[in-house]
């Protein structure tokens, strides 16, 4: 397979399109199979684990008849296989069932909450990437000197701090002591009015509605959660950037560039290009890890995203909610990984396609 990759460079050869196309096709095939696995696992997760949801919904004083009625209503009295087929059938129609407690449709709940989570995650990844790569690259460039030492100390500290603890510390320091951030009341302040829903992203909707007060409030409410997640995940970026940029700076390529008398700026730029693939991969992996991984931080900041929703669902055994969350997070993760594979594969001609 390595051959076809090399030949992609020859513009006149007929195989030119086959490398990338084949890469995309094989990744998409894997995506399909893996998605099926995610669906099955999210189904099994809840059907196989002990604990009867019907008893839970009915409450402690319910009679056996009432519990049986609820079981029949939920379809829990059918065979596992029949339940599985029903689940997949519903999924194909875009129907993920309704919450046991609120009776709201899972699909619309996810639709309403996903934007809040996505904006939080996206900004955190960007923050983490910029800070982390900066610190890591500085550490690699000044290896063994003070910027490196400070950077490595910060990296190991932030890598060890649980995100929910950092969130609390930041709330105490930045909100309570310094008064620089608003109280952790969610996406907007308690007094603010939620703008009319257009895109679902509050900041954008506020801009569309022309409500600048709400817009700035939404931006300031993003500050602490993004800082929390950004700092924790910047540590991972810094560690990776330090080793990859360091390796690139020590490569023959960089030595040659220096020997040729190219300015340090250019040498650094070359090193970044070489480290690019790894860093992009990392950004994708962290984006995926944050989905669901940031649930506790969401909860602390009363953030109205899918993380808070999923936690609540799990803690009261709201089975369809748990399934919905596992499905969405699993699917988005797999799609991210697939896109990553394709992007990195196309960025770097040295990676074998196939």
């Amino acid at each position, binding site marked *: 397979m390595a051959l076809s990759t090399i030949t992609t460079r020859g513009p006149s050869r007929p195989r030119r399109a086959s490398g990338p196309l084949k890469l995309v096709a094989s990744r998409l095939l*894997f995506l399909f199979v*893996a998605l099926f*696995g*995610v669906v099955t*696992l999210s189904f099994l*997760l*809840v059907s196989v*684990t*002990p*604990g009867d949801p019907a008893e839970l919904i009915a409450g402690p004083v319910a009679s056996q008849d009432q519990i049986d009625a609820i079981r029949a209503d939920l379809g829990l009295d059918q065979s596992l296989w029949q339940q599985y087929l029903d689940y997949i059938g519903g999924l194909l129609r875009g129907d993920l069932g309704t919450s046991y407690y609120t009776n709201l449709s899972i699909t619309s709940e996810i639709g309403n909450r996903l934007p809040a989570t996505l904006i939080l995650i996206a900004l955190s990844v960007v923050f983490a990437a910029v800070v982390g790569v900066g610190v890591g690259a500085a550490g690699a460039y000044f290896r063994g000197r003070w910027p490196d030492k400070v950077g490595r100390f910060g990296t*190991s*500290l932030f*890598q*060890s*701090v*649980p995100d*929910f*603890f950092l969130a*609390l*510390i930041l*709330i*105490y320091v930045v*909100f*309570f002591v310094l008064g620089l951030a608003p*109280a*952790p009341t969610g996406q907007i302040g308690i007094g603010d009015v939620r703008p009319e829903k257009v895109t679902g992203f509050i900041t954008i909707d506020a801009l569309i509605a022309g409500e600048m007060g709400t817009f700035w409030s939404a931006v300031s409410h993003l500050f602490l959660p993004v800082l929390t997640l950004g700092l924790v995940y910047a540590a991972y970026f810094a560690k990776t950037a330090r080793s990859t940029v360091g390796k690139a700076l020590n490569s023959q390529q960089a030595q040659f560039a220096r020997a040729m008398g190219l300015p340090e700026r250019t040498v650094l730029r070359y090193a970044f290009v070489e480290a690019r693939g790894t860093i992009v991969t990392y950004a994708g992996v962290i984006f*995926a890890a944050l*989905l*669901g*991984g940031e*649930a*506790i931080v969401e*909860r*602390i900041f009363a953030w109205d995203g899918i993380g808070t929703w*999923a*936690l609540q669902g*799990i*803690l009261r*055994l709201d089975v369809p909610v*748990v399934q919905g*969350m*596992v499905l969405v*997070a*699993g699917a988005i*993760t*797999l799609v991210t*990984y697939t896109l990553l594979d394709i992007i990195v594969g196309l960025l770097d001609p040295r990676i074998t396609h196939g």
Partner: protein
Amino acid sequence: MAESPAPARRREPGLTASRWTTVRRLVAEHPGAALGVTFIVVLVLWSLFGPLPYDPRGTDGSASREGPSGTHWFGTDGTGGDVFSRVIEAAKIDLSLALAGTAVALVIGVPLGLAASTKGKGSQRLVRGLDAFQAFPLLILALALVSLSGNQLYMVVVAIALLNIPRYMRLLRSEVLAIRESRFVEAATAMGASTPRLIFRHLLPNVWGVILVQTSLTIANSIVVLSSLSFLGVGVSAPTPSWGSMIRDGAGNMSSGEWWIATFPGLAVLLCVLAFNQLADAIGDRTARSYR
């Protein structure tokens, strides 16, 4: 222990340094890991045998939410419990669950990883499958397992093990695949070494380093998972103090200024995790030097 100075005959010039010198050299080379190990040892010994100033499960209505002082070193929580005594006491349950989860993951993950370390199609598919498994929001998965099982403590151990078995498998597979290529394995195979001999005499001794590093990292990670779970009220429950549930108790007080209730248990988690991470770094440094 190694603290006693070695007898003089051991200090002969040449290759054998005394144990005391070795310990001192180790500490000088890895100060972070040495501090970390000291912290963990002191914490464990104190929680097991040490006297606590107050009953960690006790309450005192007259002294609720008092700041750190001479009487209550780390202050008191909402019910008047002494935060210091509770932080020390919680080390018992938190560290033992983290260790148990790690041990289970190690015992299951390493043999599975060895079994999967062939070049066949099957084992490649298995690794792809593990990738897909790791694509799940793992914390959510752990939460679901523990809370759906009715909050059983052994499920916490199972959850931690489940999250980490794939990591051991991947690590073992990649390391062993690389070693399988080398000459000495080829030579052993050619001389007719049996599979167990190959595994125990040739493969395992060469991957002990990475296994130890991974184990130290896994313990650190398990402490975080565990405290996340009990922060959410899952796993270790009420009268038993755990760091996560203590942070949960004090979380609301952070925005009203009573910082000590959540901060000290949080620091305990942070320092333990930092200690095991530093230990992992140090082990990694040493084992990498010895055979690479």
